[in-house]
């Protein structure tokens, strides 16, 4: 793929004590097949670790998979860590077992999209394409 049409770099990982990584790995592979460069961090990381990786890797989007139910604590903590590192503008996409009633809370806290279980793969790819592309355009304008 030529430089101009690159899909971008995205981080896929899991936070907290949640070892169910099949979904995250599936998404990582699907994104790779769609032309993304995927930084895969693996399981059981703190919000601060993920934020630090996202900054060093200068990713265009962060995708966090959560099936543990701890999203209302961990995701805002991660966004806080991103803001501390002057990276609060990196878009965050949350996927996994997220109850409908928590979605608006997460969005209030700065999450740009929530993809619950059962979302078709193509929809997920479309969201990543759109979000990452928008962020890249934005990066480009202040360059």
């Amino acid at each position: 793929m030529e430089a101009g049409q690159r899909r971008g770099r995205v981080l896929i990982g899991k936070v907290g004590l949640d070892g169910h990584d099949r979904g995250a790995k599936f998404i990582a592979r699907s994104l790779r097949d769609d032309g993304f460069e995927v930084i895969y961090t693996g399981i059981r990381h703190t919000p601060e670790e993920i934020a630090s990786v996202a900054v060093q890797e200068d990713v265009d989007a962060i995708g966090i998979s959560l099936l543990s139910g701890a999203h209302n604590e961990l995701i805002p903590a991660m966004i806080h860590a991103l803001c501390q590192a002057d990276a609060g503008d990196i878009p965050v996409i949350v996927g996994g077992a997220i109850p409908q009633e928590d979605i608006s809370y997460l969005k209030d806290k700065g999450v740009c999209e929530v993809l619950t279980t059962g979302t078709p793969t193509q929809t997920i790819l479309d969201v990543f394409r759109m979000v990452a592309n928008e962020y890249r355009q934005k990066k480009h304008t202040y360059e």
Partner: protein
Amino acid sequence: MNEIDGILKGIREGNPRTIGRAISAIEEGNHRAAAILQGINEGCVLAATILGITGPPGAGKSTLINQLISHYRIHGKRVGIVAIDPSSPVSGGAILGDRIRMMRHATDPGVIIRSMSTRGRVGGLCAAAGSAAKIMACSGCNPVIIETVGVGHLEIDIVGLADIVVFVLAPGFGDDVQAMKAGLIEMADVLVVNKADHAGADALIVDLKYATQGRDCQVCSTSATESRGIEDLANIIGNIAQRKRQTGQFIQKREKMLESEILHRAVELMRTKLKDRLMAQEEQIIGDPQDIVRKLLEEVCVTQLESKKR
């Protein structure tokens, strides 16, 4: 202060956000890239040792680097890592997964890690690896470690980029004839038998020692998951670095690096030009490949010259 000065200051201060963005600028080749690279303090780049870690897929390169980072951190050094993984020949995408083995150091401000995709390049590196290493050196990292993709015999680009090349092997990859074969194994400064706790490691060490007889190459063994042999490896690396600097080998090689960087860049540009030209042919290509190559080269060179005249 203008924008580039701000970026350079951020790099020198070790600001991870600035470093991350600067490496992206260079990887994307945007208009800031040249200005950033020109502003890099050459003194820092010369002071830093660039360590190339290479070897076949699954030999334990990332795990070994994870241990080396711990070692250097104990000794108070700031460490930079450029970890390269292959891009997909099908989609152009990539899974950059070297970092998983190094997550222990994720929040350590003295460690900066950047995962990079080869973006179609062969040879074991990505085009921006050398520049990324320079930015890390400028931010005070010493050493800067470059992890190549999993390599075979001839992905030897790392030899042109690193001051010291460490080739990591593990038992079970082949017999003593493999150890005798030409290629990367001849170019390495250190051969590491990792997974030394596995069966066959001792035999591999013997084979490698025999294969490297009469040549300036050290053989050692590690077990990265058990954190064994790391101290010895780091000492060997340290001694080689010191010796190369004393004998002038270090500076000689750095001077050659620019040459190889230019050559690689030129070949890469040429490759796309040739490919575009070939794809643009309307009728089916038939005939002797050698003839076609000659014609193709002529055509591309002529078009280049003409476009220059205009």
